[in-house]
Structures are given as C-alpha cells and as structure tokens.
C-alpha cells in the first residue's frame, strides 16, 4: 500500500525517504542505549505501529496463515462487524486438521469436515485469499506449507490460529500462535495487540551422538525448563548444534517452543536459511533476492545483545528421549526408568500420579519394552522430507511387527510427491507402513485417524495430552521419527540405536 504523502516522488526517492523515516522511528523507539539488539528487538521495532491506550503494542503482522479450524468463526465476526480483509495478499490458507488422509474425494464422508473445507473455500474466494486447496498439489500442514512455499521469511512477523506457529521462527521470523478473535484482528487490521516478550537464549553446543535428533533436543529442553518455564519468554535457540542444524531440524525445535510455555521460538537466520529459501515460489527473485539476503542477515541478533536469561546445554549429554506422561515435559531418556511420583518435585506429584494412571505405566520400571499398538510418523514437528528420509534409510528391508498399525503421513503434498518420486513411499509400504495423504492426521485425531480405546501410540508428534490422539483413553509416547520406526518394528518402545545399529 502506498501512503499518499510520497505519491509524487520517484520510487527511488520514496525508498530513500522511507528508509530515513524508518530509521528515525527506530531511534525514537529505542529504549535505553543498548547498541546490540536481539532479532526480536529488531523485528519488533520494524513492525510496531503504535502504542495502544492500554499499553500494548499494535504490531504489524506481515504474514497471516489460516486453516479450516480456527478461521471460520473469525470470518463470521468480520461479517458481523461489516469489515473486510485489509491485506488479502498477505494471508495464505490451507486445509490440514480435518482432511482425511485415505480418501481424497469430496464430499468427505464426515459432514462436519466437509462443511469446514467448504466454508474455508468460500471465505477465501469472497476475500481474495490464496488457498492451497487439495487440488493444488500445495496443500499440507500449515507450518510445513509456509516454509516450503518460501512464504516464511527472516525478519518478518507471522501469525496463525495455531499454537505451533512458533515453527516459522526457524527462519528468524517472529511467529505467534493466536486465538480466533486475534485471527479476526489480523484479517481486519493486519495487526494485533501484543506485549513484547522477554528473550531467553538457549544454547546447545557440540555434536549430537548418532541416533539423537532435533526432537530429542527440544524434548530435553522442555524436560529441563518445564512446560510453563517459557511463560512470558521468546526462546532464541543458538550454539554450535543449532549452527550445524538444517532448516528442517531447526523447525522441529522451534515447533515445540509452545510445549515449553514459550509462545515464540526462533533461530537467527544464516546461510543455511538463505539456501533453503532460494528458488522457492514466494522467495524474492533476482536483484530482490540479493537485497533481501542483505536485509535478512542484518536482522540476526547482534553479538553482545541483552538476554533476560541464558541457559546452555551440551549436545553430547542428550540421549534419545521419550515421554512417559501426559505433558511433553514428562520425558526421560530411553534407558531411564519411569519415575516414581515421590521422585518428582512436590508440585508436580499429583500430575505425575495422574499421568502414571492414564498411561498404565509402572514407576521405577524401564520405559523400554512397553508394548506399542500404533506407530505414527508425521505432524508439523516431524512430517518433513528429511524425517521420512532418515527413517526410510533405516527401515529398508525391515518389517512392521504384526499387530502394530503403522502409518506415515507426509506433512504436505509437496513432501509426499518428492518422497514418492524418491521411492520412499515404496520403502515404507514394503516395510508394512500405510502411506497416507498429507494432513495433521493422528496428531490430534480430528480426521478419521484416531487411536481406539487405550491404544498406546509411539508418535513423532508434539503433544501427549490425554485424549489428544482422538480417543479419550488413548496413550501417546512422543519421540523422534527413528524411535517411532523402532517401535513399529519391535512392537515395543525401543532404543532405535540398537534396533537399527546406529553408531
């Protein structure tokens, strides 16, 4: 959008004036005289529109992602208020939570699911919003589609009516999960009212041992800092382990920030980030690309930036991690025993008892060897190509244990088609996995993929809440994709390093 004041100027001059205006604003907003800033400081300043009467910041949201579950009511509110979408070109939609992964023909047999996809289609058409619908070949889990399309970019602000929006922070974006009223706010004003979070720097240094993955890193962090330890914080992840991580590994970690209570998690953008983005459909092209990379580089946290808190972990101390309870902080290394309630801090004791009862696990006994009914490989945490590749590499020639239902749900149609062309789907099928269409699937069981009764699921997803996978008594054990594969092959919770001779 053009602001009228500059309309008579040449584009070059306008850009120049704007950059001066932007820097002036930057100075005015400067609090204290820290010369060094975090990425969060910089992105916040660049997107702060004004201070609202209640002291909150009206923050510009550059990119808005929507899906079928949390948007229909927001469009309804918009209609009630007689409002339109302010920047339709900055909102992108996809459908993920309710799509069946085994039938792709419409109408869906579930009337409610069918009504939801139709409502999203209608709302997008009415407001001129790009919709990565099922027939586009670009549909998938919203947090996989955004990066894959190059929509997720460094130095931007992103919001989505979904708490795992923190995933996009892997690119050095500040990304917020929001409720439906805020979806309405962003649709109508491209902004929302927010208070600036504090920043905790989380360093992980060194090399992960073979068979230990990004998933283990984030489960470990949540275990150490607690499920609400991140309250009021944004997590900035860094250190040599993160420097060496691929974009997809960084996404796995940022994805679960919210499980540690931090609404925002991010990694500073670097060459790995730029290389991932280059050539993607929505990434800048040509000269614009070079300018963008220069800008993106400058958004990274400065050396010596101020952090409200800093914690550091050694990668070599992290082992494959699995959850034993009903929140992601109830996690142990694969070779540890299920804790007894009296071993946990008193404030967590009642939850621990509840967890043991729900999970039917014996305290003081190894978690290894616990019988598994279902193995789920997918979700916005671990449903990307590299996850499937890593498992396929090890599963080739192996067989899913009789009696175990094992499904692979690629995170997007893009992931699915590349995986299929690489022959991964065949490898999984031969091993006895069902190869499904893209969506959230058994991560939350809003589609037909649900646990039944008290089935125990080895899952590469992010939440082990009671009832999360579609059965109120269903049991979820979170772990890395390769650990899911090991559970599928043995029919019990296993150490993937032993099963697949990883060393």
């Amino acid at each position, binding site marked *: *959008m053009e*602001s009228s004041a500059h309309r008579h100027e040449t584009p070059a001059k306008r850009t120049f004036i*704007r950059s001066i205006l932007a820097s002036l604003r930057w100075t005015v907003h400067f609090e204290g005289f820290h010369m060094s800033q975090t990425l969060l400081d910089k992105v916040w300043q*660049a*997107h*702060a*529109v004004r201070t*609202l*009467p*209640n*002291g*909150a910041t*009206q923050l*510009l949201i*550059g990119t808005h992602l929507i899906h079928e*579950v*949390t948007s*229909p009511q927001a469009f309804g509110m918009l209609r009630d208020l007689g*409002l339109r979408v*302010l920047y339709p070109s900055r909102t992108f939609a996809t459908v993920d*939570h309710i799509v069946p992964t085994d039938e792709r023909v419409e109408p869906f047999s579930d009337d409610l*699911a069918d*009504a*939801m996809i139709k409502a999203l289609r209608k709302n997008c058409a009415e407001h001129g919003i790009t919709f990565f619908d099922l027939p586009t070949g670009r549909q998938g889990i919203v947090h996989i589609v955004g990066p894959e399309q190059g929509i997720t*970019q460094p130095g931007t602000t992103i919001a989505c*009516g*979904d*708490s795992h*929006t923190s995933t996009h922070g892997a690119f050095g974006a500040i990304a917020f*999960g*929001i*409720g439906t*009223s*805020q979806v*309405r*706010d962003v649709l109508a*004003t*491209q*902004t*929302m*009212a927010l*208070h600036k979070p504090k920043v905790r720097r989380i360093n992980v240094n060194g090399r992960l041992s073979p068979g230990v993955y990004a998933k283990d890193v984030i489960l470990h962090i949540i275990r150490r800092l607690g*499920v*609400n330890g991140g*309250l*009021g914080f944004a997590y900035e992840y860094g250190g040599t382990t993160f420097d060496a991580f691929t974009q997809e590994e960084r996404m796995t970690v940022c994805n679960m920030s919210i499980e540690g*209570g931090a*609404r925002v998690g991010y990694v500073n953008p670097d060459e790995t980030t730029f290389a991932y983005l280059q050539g993607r459909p929505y990434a800048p092209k040509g000269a614009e690309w070079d300018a*963008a990379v220069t800008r993106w580089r400058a958004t990274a946290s400065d050396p010596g930036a101020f952090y409200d808190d800093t914690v550091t972990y050694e990668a070599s101390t992290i082992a494959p991690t699995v959850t034993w309870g009903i929140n992601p902080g109830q996690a142990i290394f694969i070779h540890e025993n299920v804790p007894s309630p009296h071993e946990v801090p008193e*404030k*967590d004791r*009642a939850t621990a008892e*509840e967890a043991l009862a729900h999970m039917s696990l014996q305290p003081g006994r190894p978690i290894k060897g616990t019988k598994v009914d279902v193995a789920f490989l997918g979700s916005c945490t671990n449903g990307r190509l590299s996850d499937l590749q890593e498992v396929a590499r090890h599963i080739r020639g192996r067989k899913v244990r009789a009696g175990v239902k094992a499904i692979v749900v690629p995170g997007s149609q893009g992931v699915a088609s590349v995986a299929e062309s690489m022959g991964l789907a065949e490898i999984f099928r031969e091993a006895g996995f069902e190869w499904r269409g893209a969506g959230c699937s058994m991560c*939350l069981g*809003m589609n037909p993929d649900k646990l039944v009764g008290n089935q125990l699921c080895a899952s590469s997803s992010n*939440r082990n*809440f009671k*009832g999360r996978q*579609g059965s*109120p008594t269903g049991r979820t054990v979170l772990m890395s994709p390769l650990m899911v594969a090991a559970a599928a092959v043995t029919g019990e919770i296993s150490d993937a390093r032993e099963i697949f001779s990883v060393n």
Partner: protein
Amino acid sequence: MALEKITQVTGRGVHVPGDDLDTDRIIPARFMKCITFDGLGEFAFYDARAFAKADGQVHPFDNPRHAGAGILLSGSNFGCGSSREHAPQALYRFGIRAIVAESFAEIFFGNSITLGMPCVVMSGDNIRAVAQLIDSDPAALATVDLTGRKFSIADMDFPIAIPDHAHEALVSGKWDAIADLLEGVEAVRERAAALPYMAA
C-alpha cells in the same frame, strides 16, 4: 465499540482440581469440527466428565450442587496447549465468567481476556481453602474484585493478581482490542509500506 467495564465478577464457585489442565481436556478436538462457537458449552471438559461418570463419580461441572457456577477455580498452568479459542469459548458458553488459578498459559490467558473473562492468579493454598468452603457451601457467592485485587467469599478476602495490562483492559472496557486496532489503520498502512516484503 463500547464494551462493558469489567470491574468485578460475582457468582458461585466451582473447583476443578489439577495442574496443567490443557486445552484438549477443556475442549477435545473432535468438538472443534464446527464453524461457529455456538453450542460449545456442553462439551466443556467433556471427556473428564464422561470418565467421572464411568467411574461412578461426578465431575464438578456435572454436580448439581455447583449448577450455575460462574467462577472456575483450578491449579497451575491452566489452559496450556493449543491456541484454540474454542477452549475459553466453551467455558464461557458453559456459564463461566471468571477463572482463578495458580498460573495460566499465555495464549489461553489472552484469548480469555479478549472475551471479557478475567483470569486471575491466586495462591494454591488459598485456592484449596476456597475449594473447601465451596464444598461445604456451594451456594456461597464469590466475587473476583478486580478493582480491589481480591477474591471474596463468605466474609473472607484473598489476594489475587492479574497483569496490569489485562487489568486495565478489563476495567476500562477495552478488553477486545479490535476498536483500537481499527483506529490505527492509517498508521498500519504507513508501517507496511516501509517494509519491503509487504510493500511489494
């Protein structure tokens, strides 16, 4: 948009004990297959209520002694998990008008304030003391007094805490930000024009 100034909420209390009561428990995902929030109230804590029934027990939300309660008391990290506004909406539509807990998850907290449903923090000991009072006299009226930052029941006062910005938003009738945000639209356009990725 003129909104009600919320300075206090009075009603009967209901205690749902437990820490980390997550959004999947407040409203299981299968009840989110909807395109309006209407009717969500009956599904609040659906599975926990069904479990209780199956065990021959009564969940507090089904206990006739607490019928019509408007103030919910619970443990720490209440509302953790998903960003689904369906969770506070379900509680609100069930009849809850204020929540008292040891701590709240951030997104749930914000979503609740936007509905005009205060979430206030009280110590675990005081919550348990109040729970006993409610148990012995479910009809006792309780008040979440934002102005006085106290929770009152049966002639007793307990201190409560709420972040200043949320407090201000509620008592000044600015708990839904949309009106303020709309007033800033011109400034929004300017800011957006200065950002290369949005100006393009």
